[in-house]
C-alpha cells in the first residue's frame, strides 16, 4: 500500500514514491512556489511599533506588493486598511521618489468604486498606504461561490467600468486588474483597489533570478501581451485587456455570439484593435447582454488562448498528430504555401490576400474529420469573394463568402455539382463590409456543414459529405488539406484557428 502525500492526502504516484520526503510533486512544488513573506516581514504586533496612531487588528491579505492589515485609526476611530509595502523596496534608491509621485496621484482619485487612499508615507523602513477599509470580499470570492446571474453581473460590470473610466480620465492605469483586486462590500458595491501599484512595486522583469521565477509563476493570465514585455510602455488599453479576461470569467461559460465578439475584440493582442476606451467596452458588453445567452461556444476559449499570447502552446512538429486548438495562421509560410498569387504576412502575423483571380494558398495541415473553424477577416480592397477551403475524410469542398459583386451570395460549394449560389445554402447579402473585421464560425461535421457570423446562422446544411466536391478553379496540389482563396479582393485574415471535435489533424511541416 502506497502512502498518501502528507500534505494533500492524495496517494503518491508510483513514479514519485518517497523520493520527495513523503510529499507529492505538486505539493513540494507548491511549497517552493508559495508566495514567501519577504525576509523580515513584520508580524502584526511588530508593525504596531511603526504606526503609533493605529491599532493593528489582523492581517487580511498578502500579495506580491506587500501586506495588508485591518487596523483602527485611533484619533478618528475608524477602520482602515493599512497596506505595508515589502520592506525590501526600501533598498531601491529611486523608490522613494516614485512612491511619492504615484501615491499622490492615487490619493487624488476619488470615486465611489475606487478604494480611497487616505494617507501614505514612510515609517522607518516601511512604506505604507492608509486606505478605506472594505467589509466584504473580492470578486474572486463571489466567483468561487458559483456563476453570477445576468443582472448581478451587469451591476458589477457597470461599477467596474465606472471606476476604470474615472481613473483613465485622470491618467491612472491600474496595470493589475484581476478578480482579487476588485472588492465587493456587503451592499454589493464595487471597490477597486491597488491602482497603479503594480508599476510601483513590481520589479523589472530583467532583474533578479529567483524573483523572475516567482513573477512568471504569478498571474500573467490577466496581463495584456504587451505588459509582459515592458511595464513602462503600456497604456490604459492594457487594463481593458485585463477587464476582458475578468469579463470572460464572470460569464462562466454563458455566452452568445455578441459576447464572443466582444471578447475577441477585447482580447486582441494588438492594442490598436481592442476597444480604445472603457466607454466603448461598456457599450459593447451592454449591447451583448441584451441578447439571450446561448450554449457555451468554443470561440471564447479559442480567442482567449490566442489573445493570451499562448502561441507557444500551438506546437507545429512535423508529421505529428495535432490535438487542441491549432492556430493555422502560424503554420503558413506564404513563400512555400501560395499556389497562385503573392500572399503576405503583415507585421502582426495577419495573412493578406492578393488582388488576383483564383488566388490560392494551401495550408500545410490536414484537418481532423470534424472540427470548428474560427475566422476573423477584414476586407481591404476589391468587391468579390473569399473562399475557405475545407476538407474532411479526404474530401475537399469550400465556402464562398460574400460571393459575387452583384449577387452577393454566400454558399457551400459544390453540392451534387451545384455551386453555392445555386444550391440550398445560397445566402443573399454582403457578409463582409469594408474595413470592419467580421467573425465567422464554420462547423464541419460528419452530418453536414454550417456557417455562422456574429451568432447569426448563414446556413446549416445537413447531408452526406460525399455529396460535396471542390470547384475546379480552386484546386490546390493536395486533396486533403485546408486552403484559402480570394477572388480579385484583398482581405486581411486576422485569425484562423481550428478546434478539433473528432479525429486528429496532421501537420505537414
Amino acid at each position, binding site marked *: 500500500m502506497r502512502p498518501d502525500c*502528507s*500534505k494533500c492526502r492524495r496517494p503518491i*504516484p*508510483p*513514479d*514519485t*514514491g518517497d*523520493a*520527495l*520526503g*513523503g*510529499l507529492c*510533486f*505538486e505539493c*513540494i*512544488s507548491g*511549497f*517552493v*512556489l*508559495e508566495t*514567501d*513573506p519577504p*525576509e523580515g516581514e513584520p*508580524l502584526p504586533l511588530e508593525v504596531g511599533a511603526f504606526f503609533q496612531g493605529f491599532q493593528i487588528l489582523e492581517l487580511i491579505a498578502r500579495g506580491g506588493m506587500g501586506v495588508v492589515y485591518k487596523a483602527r485609526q485611533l484619533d478618528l476611530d475608524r477602520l482602515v486598511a493599512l497596506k505595508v509595502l515589502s520592506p525590501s523596496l526600501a533598498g531601491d534608491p529611486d523608490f522613494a521618489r516614485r512612491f511619492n509621485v504615484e501615491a499622490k496621484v492615487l490619493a487624488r482619485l476619488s470615486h465611489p468604486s475606487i478604494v480611497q487612499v487616505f494617507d501614505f508615507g514612510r515609517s522607518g523602513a516601511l512604506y505604507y498606504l492608509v486606505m478605506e477599509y472594505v467589509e466584504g470580499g473580492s470578486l474572486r470570492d463571489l466567483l468561487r461561490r458559483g456563476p453570477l446571474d445576468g443582472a448581478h453581473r451587469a451591476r458589477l460590470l457597470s461599477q467596474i467600468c465606472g471606476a476604470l473610466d474615472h481613473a483613465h480620465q485622470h491618467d491612472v492605469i491600474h496595470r493589475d486588474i484581476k478578480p482579487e483586486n476588485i472588492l465587493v462590500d456587503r451592499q454589493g458595491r464595487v471597490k477597486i483597489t491597488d491602482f497603479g501599484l503594480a508599476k510601483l512595486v513590481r520589479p523589472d522583469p530583467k532583474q533578479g*533570478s*529567483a524573483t*523572475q*521565477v516567482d513573477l*512568471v*509563476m504569478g498571474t500573467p493570465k490577466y496581463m495584456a501581451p504587451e505588459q509582459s514585455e515592458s511595464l513602462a510602455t503600456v497604456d490604459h488599453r492594457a487594463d481593458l485587456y485585463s477587464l476582458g479576461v475578468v469579463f470572460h470569467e464572470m460569464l462562466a461559460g454563458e455566452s452568445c455570439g455578441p459576447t464572443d465578439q466582444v471578447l475577441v475584440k477585447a482580447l486582441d493582442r494588438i492594442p490598436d484593435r481592442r476597444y480604445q476606451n472603457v466607454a466603448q467596452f461598456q457599450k459593447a458588453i451592454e449591447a451583448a447582454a441584451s441578447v439571450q445567452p446561448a450554449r457555451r461556444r468554443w470561440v471564447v476559449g479559442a480567442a482567449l488562448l490566442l489573445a493570451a499570447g499562448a502561441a507557444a502552446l500551438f506546437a507545429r512538429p512535423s508529421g505529428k498528430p495535432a490535438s487542441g486548438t491549432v492556430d493555422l495562421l502560424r503554420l503558413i509560410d506564404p513563400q512555400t504555401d501560395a499556389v497562385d498569387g503573392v500572399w503576405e504576412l503583415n507585421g502582426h502575423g495577419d495573412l493578406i490576400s492578393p488582388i488576383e483571380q483564383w488566388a490560392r494558398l494551401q495550408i500545410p495541415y490536414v484537418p481532423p474529420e470534424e472540427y470548428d473553424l474560427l475566422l476573423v477577416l477584414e476586407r481591404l480592397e476589391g468587391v468579390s469573394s473569399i473562399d475557405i477551403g475545407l476538407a474532411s475524410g479526404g474530401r475537399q469542398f469550400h465556402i464562398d463568402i460574400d460571393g459575387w459583386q452583384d449577387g452577393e451570395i454566400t454558399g457551400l460549394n459544390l453540392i451534387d455539382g451545384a455551386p453555392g449560389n445555386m444550391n440550398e445554402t445560397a445566402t443573399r447579402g454582403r457578409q463582409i463590409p469594408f474595413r470592419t473585421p467580421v467573425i465567422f464560425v464554420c462547423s464541419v461535421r460528419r452530418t453536414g456543414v454550417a456557417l455562422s457570423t456574429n451568432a447569426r446562422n448563414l446556413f446549416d446544411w445537413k447531408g452526406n459529405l460525399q455529396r460535396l466536391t471542390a470547384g475546379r478553379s480552386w484546386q490546390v496540389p493536395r486533396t486533403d488539406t485546408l486552403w484559402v482563396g480570394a477572388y480579385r479582393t484583398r482581405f486581411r485574415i486576422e485569425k484562423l484557428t481550428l478546434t478539433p471535435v473528432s479525429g486528429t489533424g496532421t501537420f505537414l511541416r
Partner: protein
Amino acid sequence: MVEETAIGGPARGFQPTVWTAVLKAKDLASPERRLALEGLIGTYWKPVYTFIRKRGIDVEKSKDLTQSFFTAFLEKDILRNVAPEKGKFRTFLLTTLTYFLADEHDRASALKRGGGFRFIAGAQDLESRAATPDAAFFRQWAIETMSRAVARLREECSPEDFLLLSEGRDEGLSVSDRKNRLHRLRLRLKELLREIIRPTVELESEIDDEVRQLFSGGSQVL
C-alpha cells in the same frame, strides 16, 4: 512492493563540473571528462528508463537499453560531433536517446561492450503517469531533480526542520519561528534546485528557464 530507488543509485553530491567544460574538453578520453559526464547523467537514469518504457518496451529490455545507452554515451564518442553551442544537456540527451533507439546496430554493439557497468540494480519496474515517452522523460527528470534537492536538504537541515517540511509537524514552534523556518527551507530548496541544474546548462541565465520547466514538467502528464 516496487523497489525502484536503486535505479540510478543514491542521490549524489553536487558536481562542480559544468556541461560547457565537458563540451569544450580537448582530450575526449580524459578521466576528468568521463567523471564529469558520469556526474551529469546521474539525474537522467529514471527519465531515460521511463522514456524507453513508454515506448512500449518491456521492463527487462528497457533496463538493458537504458544501460546500453549510458554505456554508449560514456564509452563512445557521442559527443565528438557536438558543437559547444548545442544547448542544454537535457535536450541533448533526449535527442541522442532518440537516435540511439532508432539505430538497431548501435544498440546491439553497445550491448556487447557494456562490461564493467552495472547501473541498474533495481529488480522492478518504474511506472509513469505520463502519457507519452517525451512527457514521461520530462516528468521523471523533474521528479528526479526535485528528489535530489530534497535529499540534499534533508542531509543539511535539522531533523525538526525536515519534519516541519515533510509532515507539517510544528509542535512547540511559535508562529514567527515556524514562519522563519519554512522561509529558510523554501529559499534553500530553491537554491539547491539551481545548484543541481547549474552543471547541465551552458549559461547561468538558462537556469531559471530550467527551474520553470521543472515546475511545469512534474505536473504535466498529458
